């Protein structure tokens, strides 16, 4: 063993030890080298050095740690505070690198740990439900009527499509006596509410779903899942709604079934059917529609005799029927018509039918999944528009009633769809309130589709010419001109 190797072994010792004894240790090694010649003695010496490193190293480190509390042997008699340097040696770059890496790893590990979902534990003081201020507000938000608070509260669904934009009548009539203060309630649910919701969903299925065999099957499957503890881990309202929706659709293969969660308390009475709107509310709606020109943003003739109709809703024909007729009359001057539904979130099926009727000169099979029966024949409105090519501009914001318009005209091969796949929301089920936050949509009658293809629920309507919504108008104009030139 050369002296270099021995010097390397010495490097493993604590700095304080090396500083003090390194030279002497090397000297001792030299002395032994000098005194112990011959193969046997040398071999013994080398073995000694290795054994010594194995036994001496731990001892040296123990010593060096123990030397810090040296005050026990040299008590500070004056008992004055003193500052002691624990380690005189500078940190080596390797130490800094290792320490830095470990710190970063620890930081990431901590971040990962706190990102894991933790089961919600309500504060003991909140009684497991909500804070006092929240419970007061919650009570104020409830209707004063003694309407049944039972888990299954019945109610007719809305007949019209809810409109994402400012088209449809307000679905929640304002109630006198209700306080307008609303706050977001915590979305966490406890075991009791979870159980109540699941039981209600199962009961509602049996009571309302049009296919009784499947209803039995689906609710039994749901209760079996609950019995097996499949829902125990779900503590979040939206999560439970999504999971129940998935399970219902899984058992029935019916995408129109939905369980929904609203963080705002649902009105005690579900949204009233539009037919039953109070005169005052109807007048309010009429005024709003008049102000917004029935959500008909633009009716104009573009260069090249292209009629352009941008409508952001299909409003109630009782209020906007005349405006819609006037718009179609104006479009009559054009040779082709572009309906811009890129910002249309839906509206009334009756208006969808009224506008569509003027595009045909013969009766056509018509699909209105909100009506019973859902398949009828649509009578033509007797308009010269019937022969003109129709283009519909779509985006992902095109939803509900606007999708019905798009879907039907596509199925009837009456229009070319240009733009993006539509939003995919049919919301055909009748709404049933379960409690303040949970509700569900259940199709109560079988939905007959005259076109024999799946409707647009979830999947939307695919465009014939797929372009980004922002390019849809230019693309459609180009298509009109191309077609004309051919």
């Amino acid at each position: 063993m050369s002296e270099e190797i021995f010097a390397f072994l010495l490097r493993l010792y604590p700095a304080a030890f090396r500083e003090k004894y390194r030279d002497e240790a090397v000297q001792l090694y030299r002395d032994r080298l000098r005194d112990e010649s011959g193969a046997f003695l040398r071999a013994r010496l080398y073995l000694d050095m290795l054994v010594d490193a194995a036994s001496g190293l731990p001892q040296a480190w123990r010593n060096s740690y123990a030397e810090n509390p040296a005050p026990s042997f040299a008590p500070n008699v004056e008992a004055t505070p003193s500052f002691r340097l624990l380690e005189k040696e500078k940190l080596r770059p390797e130490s800094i690198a290792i320490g830095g890496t470990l710190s970063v790893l620890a930081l990431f590990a901590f971040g990962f740990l706190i990102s894991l979902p933790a089961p919600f534990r309500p504060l003991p003081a909140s009684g497991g439900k909500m804070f006092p201020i929240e419970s007061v507000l919650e009570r104020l938000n409830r209707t004063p009527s003694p309407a049944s608070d039972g888990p299954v509260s019945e109610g007719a669904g809305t007949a019209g499509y809810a409109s994402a934009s400012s088209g449809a009548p307000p679905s929640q009539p304002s109630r006198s006596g209700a306080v307008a203060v609303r706050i977001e309630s915590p979305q966490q649910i406890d075991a009791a509410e979870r159980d109540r919701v699941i039981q209600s969903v199962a009961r509602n299925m049996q009571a309302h779903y049009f296919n009784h065999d499947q209803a039995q099957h689906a609710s039994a499957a749901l209760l079996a899942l609950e019995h097996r503890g499949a829902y125990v881990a779900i503590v979040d309202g939206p999560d439970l709604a999504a999971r129940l929706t998935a399970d219902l659709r899984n058992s029935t293969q019916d995408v129109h079934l939905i369980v929904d969660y609203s963080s705002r308390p649902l009105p005690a009475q579900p949204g009233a059917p539009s037919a039953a709107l109070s005169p005052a509310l109807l007048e309010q709606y009429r005024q709003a529609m008049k102000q917004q020109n029935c959500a008909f943003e633009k009716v104009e003739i573009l260069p090249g005799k292209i009629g352009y109709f941008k409508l952001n809703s299909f409003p109630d024909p009782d209020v906007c029927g005349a405006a819609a007729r006037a718009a179609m009359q104006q479009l009559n001057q054009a040779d082709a018509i572009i309906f811009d539904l890129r910002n249309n979130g839906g509206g009334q099926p009756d208006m969808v039918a009224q506008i569509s009727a003027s595009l045909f000169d013969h009766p056509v099979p018509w699909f209105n999944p909100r009506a019973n029966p859902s398949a009828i024949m649509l009578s033509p409105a007797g308009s010269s528009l019937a022969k003109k090519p129709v283009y519909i501009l779509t985006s992902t914001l095109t939803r509900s009633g606007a999708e019905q318009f798009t879907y039907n005209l596509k199925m009837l091969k009456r229009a070319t769809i240009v733009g993006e796949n539509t939003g995919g929301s049919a919301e055909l089920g009748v709404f049933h309130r379960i409690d303040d936050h949970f509700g569900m949509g259940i199709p109560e009658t079988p939905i007959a589709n005259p076109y024999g293809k799946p409707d647009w629920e979830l999947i939307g309507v695919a465009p014939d010419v797929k372009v980004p919504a922002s390019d849809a108008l230019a693309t459609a104009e180009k298509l009109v001109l191309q077609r004309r030139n051919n």
Partner: protein
Amino acid sequence: MPKRKLDPLPSAAFHILLSLADGELHGYGIMRQVEEQTNATIRLGPGTLYSSLQALVEEGLIEEVDRRSTAAKGQERRRYYRLTSSGRKLAHSEAERLADLLRVARAKKFLKGEYV
């Protein structure tokens, strides 16, 4: 308060104390002395030797002697050590403790023959 390093006294430390009974020695000298007094069964390597010396110095059982002024030129780097009175006392009590053990062992017939 950390546990005292030399309680119980390791055999290496005891041998060092014994090796210094006759006078001052430097590290290599101690090593040779220990080798001799144990019939070459214990050869202290530098790690063990100097760790033990350090611990003994800290406990006040031995002390370093400044011999540089009188040392020959080649020995300047060597530190000499000698027993302190408390080191001598501890070595004495440790020897007595071992003697007690020895008496017990003999009484239990673990050892035969003459008194050592």
